[in-house]
């Protein structure tokens, strides 16, 4: 007797290891991509599209299992469950209620969402899988227009290697700041609700302003974000610690040979000493952001940060600690560990959609789960002339979001607001 297919399994990559150890209902480590189409969603076609996309991206067709020392992924033979959206965005994925899948596809009217557990992949690769679902869904819902695409196969090429292990520098030394960050003050929203506020920005107008200011879009929005925090939370609460803005970086840009669908990201952390360095106007904040980006967004610095994190995961003492103890230690020290970041802002940039599919799409959204210490997280993505900047928050106060919006409006940039209605947001629609 010979078994045809032995059950596939793979190790978690170096970044992914931390997520199942630390994640829980309050710290979900989930991010979401959504697309708003021009027609209502057909759930049957959506299910078919997800199944077809999964055939191509088998790395998503897995479940999480526990080993004695680390978690691992194992092939999942079940079908994914497609549901109408019922919960707040980026909530913890209870895989037992989700046919063991580590991603969740939901729909609401014209919108398709995918919530992805960060252990599975990062924003960049999650985006590839999501776009495959969107392409396939559009093809299936418009078979006449996409006759040729339905007959042929759109090839995808990827690996599931741990690119961290392949590319890290053993000799690189950590440059992480030991200073704790200013933590946003204020009451949390009750009953586990999560606010999502989307600011839909005129991308062309924003680009023109950035050109005038001599900075990138990410730098400009980072500066506006720090300014909004400074004005609405820091000053009011007499903050003393630096505002630390964490910006994830796609490592595939620095290691283009990597085709991995696993996590392969690092981050830079801007550290704005508002009081000490007297950074008290937007102009000063923007100058600080430009300088700090120049200092930190270099290949050498990014490899240092990545290598330091890989070394932690590779530490033999950490390796031999049983998983159950790792979980207990990390969860007990969670609040202390998280106190080194004020806020995270992830900009995935242009969605890069094939031209033929564009007429069926309004815009894309990206959301990141907030958590008890980092109560607001920000993300942005761009499709055509619409850049959607999203605040996901559990802070029961939308003044930072309002200040951000008002700032852009005052600079002559057209901004529209959409939200899930958890917080009383800016009601003006331009």
């Amino acid at each position: 007797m010979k078994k045809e297919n032995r059950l596939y399994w793979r190790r978690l990559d170096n970044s992914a290891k931390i997520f199942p150890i630390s994640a829980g209902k309050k710290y979900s480590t989930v991010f979401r991509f959504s697309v708003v189409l021009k027609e209502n969603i057909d759930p049957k076609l959506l299910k078919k599209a997800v199944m077809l996309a999964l055939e191509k991206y088998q790395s998503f067709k897995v479940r999480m299992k526990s080993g004695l020392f680390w978690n691992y992924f194992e092939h999942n033979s079940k079908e994914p469950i497609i549901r109408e959206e019922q919960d707040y965005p980026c909530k913890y994925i209870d895989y037992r209620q989700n046919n063991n899948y580590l991603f969740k596809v939901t729909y609401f009217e014209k919108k398709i969402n995918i919530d992805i557990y960060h252990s599975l992949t990062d924003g960049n690769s999650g985006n590839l899988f999501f776009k495959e679902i969107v392409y396939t869904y559009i093809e299936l819902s418009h078979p006449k227009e996409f006759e040729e695409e339905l007959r042929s196969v759109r090839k995808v090429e990827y690996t599931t290697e741990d690119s961290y292990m392949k590319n890290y520098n053993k000799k690189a030394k950590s440059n992480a700041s030991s200073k704790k960050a200013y933590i946003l003050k204020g009451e949390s929203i009750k009953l586990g609700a999560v606010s999502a506020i989307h600011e839909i920005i005129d991308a062309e107008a924003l680009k023109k302003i950035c050109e005038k200011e001599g900075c990138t879009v990410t730098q400009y929005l980072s500066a506006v974000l720090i300014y909004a925090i400074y004005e609405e939370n820091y000053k009011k609460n007499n903050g003393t610690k630096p505002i630390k803005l964490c910006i994830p970086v796609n490592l595939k840009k620095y290691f283009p040979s990597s085709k991995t669908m696993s996590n392969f990201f690092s981050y830079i952390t801007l550290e704005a000493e508002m009081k000490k360095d007297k950074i008290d106007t937007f102009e000063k904040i923007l100058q600080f952001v430009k300088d700090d980006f120049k200092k930190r967004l270099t290949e050498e610095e990014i490899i240092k940060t990545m290598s330091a994190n890989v070394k932690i995961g590779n530490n033999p003492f950490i390796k031999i600690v049983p998983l159950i103890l790792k979980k207990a230690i990390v969860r007990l020290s969670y609040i202390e560990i998280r106190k080194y970041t004020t806020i995270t802002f992830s900009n995935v940039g242009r969605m890069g959609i094939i031209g033929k599919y564009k007429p069926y799409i309004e815009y894309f959204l990206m959301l990141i789960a907030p958590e008890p210490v980092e109560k607001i997280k920000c993300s942005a993505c761009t499709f055509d002339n619409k850049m959607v900047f999203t605040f996901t928050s559990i802070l029961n106060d939308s003044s930072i979001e309002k200040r951000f919006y008002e700032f852009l409006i005052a600079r002559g940039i057209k901004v529209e607001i959409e939200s899930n209605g958890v917080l009383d947001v800016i009601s003006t629609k331009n």
Partner: protein
Amino acid sequence: MLYPQKINAKKTNLIIKIAILISLIVGILLVLINSLTTPNIKWAGYCNAGIIYIWVTVLYALNKNINIASHLFIQMLALSVLSIYIDVRLGFQAWSINLAIPIIIIIINIIMLILSIVSYDNYIRYAFFQLLIVVVSSVPLFFIYEHLVNDKTLSIVATSISGVNLIFSLIFHHKDIKSEIARKFHM
């Protein structure tokens, strides 16, 4: 509109929480009634042990994606603990370790053996729990070694069946077992 107006309030969790609370109140009431009416016979303890056993089984079974071998393992542990508890409460006549636990081990091992034959291709899903069942099935040997059992026969039969089960698995599923050990113990 981008989001639904009514958000799911997770009713299932709430129902389970209410049911656990009711069980807790019932348990306390039973103890009170027991101590007020028939304080010489401690029947409330048995009832509460039964309630705990039911909850272990129900909470485990509520997870619809459970592995059948893991369910067998949990049942094996829960039933063994329950039988020892009742035996101890009744003055420890050792029927739990002489009879109950060996019988539980025999039944569970026979089911596992059948499972490993009929689910030949899916055996790897059960391999880890099979190994755990074999480990727990060796406990009667400890009872024999410590002279806790009066009649060794059933204990020897139970452990032997478990041994046969292990040998069968090692012969026909050794690659699965090797792979399962690699994934469970990778560092």
